[in-house]
């Protein structure tokens, strides 16, 4: 059982939720791992109890490079959780990993949720939020929360070639 507080929210992962316990424990070591199916060898996100492609029950956790491209996003101006209000506008990013992109079919990919954060894991300021859109290259960082629990997050990959992202105007 992991129980922690983050931005005013109680977070809990119970002892039977083995998949999420394992996932977040690796994140706490700043080691992003996904389950790889023992049968078809495909990776999946988020953690599941069987393989979404072949229903195989067995998998192993393998390290995956935390780099990808913003596939879509929303920029939140009206926060629901009170403690997020101080960070508005904040970004929720849907990031398609470079790993397994377009597999097993052209329209599939590992699309990993995260906020846009500073490299230290704190939600990014407005000036950075306004640089990001569909197509932005990002790299994974972590927000440390408690022993055995860190959230995978995204920050701008400053080393990537500068292609202007698509952003919602207005």
């Amino acid at each position, binding site marked *: 059982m992991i129980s922690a507080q983050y931005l005013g*929210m109680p977070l809990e992962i119970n002892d039977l939720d083995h998949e999420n316990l394992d996932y977040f424990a690796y994140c706490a070591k700043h080691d992003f791992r996904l389950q790889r199916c023992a049968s078809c060898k495909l990776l999946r*996100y*988020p953690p599941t109890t069987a393989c*979404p492609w072949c229903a195989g029950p067995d998998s192993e956790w393998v390290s995956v490079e935390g780099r990808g491209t913003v596939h879509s996003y*929303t920029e939140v*101006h009206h926060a*629901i*959780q009170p403690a997020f209000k101080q960070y508005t506008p904040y970004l929720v990013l*849907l990031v398609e990993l470079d790993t397994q992109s377009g597999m097993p079919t052209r*329209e599939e990919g590992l699309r990993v949720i995260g906020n846009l954060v500073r490299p230290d894991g704190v939600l990014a300021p407005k000036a950075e939020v306004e640089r990001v859109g569909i197509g932005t290259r990002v790299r994974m960082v972590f927000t440390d929360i408690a022993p055995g629990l860190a959230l995978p997050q995204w920050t701008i990959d400053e080393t990537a070639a500068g292609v202007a992202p698509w952003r919602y105007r207005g």
Partner: protein
Amino acid sequence: MPLPREDVEATTPKFLRDKYAIVGVGETSYTRGSDKSTRALASIAVRNAMVDAGLKPSEIDGMLSYQFNDSVFSPFVAGDLGIRLNFYMDVFGGGSSTEALIGIAIGVIEAGMCKTVVIFRSMNGFSQVRIGGTGVRSAVPVSGDMMHSRAYGWQSAGQMFAPTFMRHMHDFGTTAEQVAHVRVAHSHHASNNPKAYYKKRVTAEDVVNSRMICKPLHLLDCCVETDNANAIIVTSAERAKDLKHPLVQIRGVVGRCSKPRVDMHYQAGPISTVAGHYAKDILWPNSGLGPEDVDLTGSYDAFTFTTMLQLEDYGFCKKGEGGHYVSDGTIMLGGKRPNNTSGGHLCEGYTHGIAMVIENVRQLRHDADDSCPTGPDGRRQHTYDYREGGCRQVKNAEVSANFGWAMPGTGSAMVMRRG
């Protein structure tokens, strides 16, 4: 002694076209502050539906409801109204539940488990459990699968659906101004609906100039939060013939049809496509009709975008042209195929989809409850003058289609026709 063996037809009939009907509809008023329990609201709505159908409590023997741990269960409503049930079930769900439960009602009647089913949704969506997700719902601990959503401040319906909306704009050039016309149309319709919570007509400029909630959603792209209950009665068309209203038959139904990876549907693209892409292949063949046969639609408007995406993926326009379809006058009263003539969730009130079915039932009876004068026969004399405060009956409405929405990855649908 062994039973005689017969050749069993093991295939399930794909449809029960026109065999079942909606014979009663009813609701409470739409308020912010009902000052009533969900049990009391449900009793009012179910009773109003029975009165509408001309059915006594003893003639109802099935009950279905849907909720999010925010409402009363069937046994209490049945008990309050003296209904003895042969079948009941309360399911977990919001949008898209209505059409799915109508399908289940048909199934249980067909199976001989009961004869007449009332379906209700009762909610204090403003004064108790706010559907926007603030208050009680934001205080629940984040656990399990929500560790991949709520922990990121990704929680409300608008926040959760926005990546689909954004990607549609990116992929097809859909604009906020185009989609704002959904609110424009529904606000015009609501201005002719005495029940509607918001009756004021708005312009596309009003929508895009309203404050940003989460991109691309402005305040007026989002539905209203209200307190209300609604009910629908389903029985066989044969039984319905003895009842007082023109017959409204269920032509075909699809329930909670889903995209791949419904647990996290953004894993399978294109993410600008919604569940209607799959549901249409059940709906149209089962109903034996197509988009061109439909006189009016009820495409779920949790947001302006949800209406647009569904109309597009059910085939009312080409993929990618939804922005044009909803902004060229087609979906307005007086247009070719009006959508949500009640004002829908954007303006009338939020009911998780059931009121959109009720509206289309009344439209197919040619009895939309607007302000038109009552004639000597006691029926409304519709003027078809759609100016503010006027008529909202669609002329010669024969076929309607409802498109329920749970999220981009799950939807339900139903075609009804005037018998």
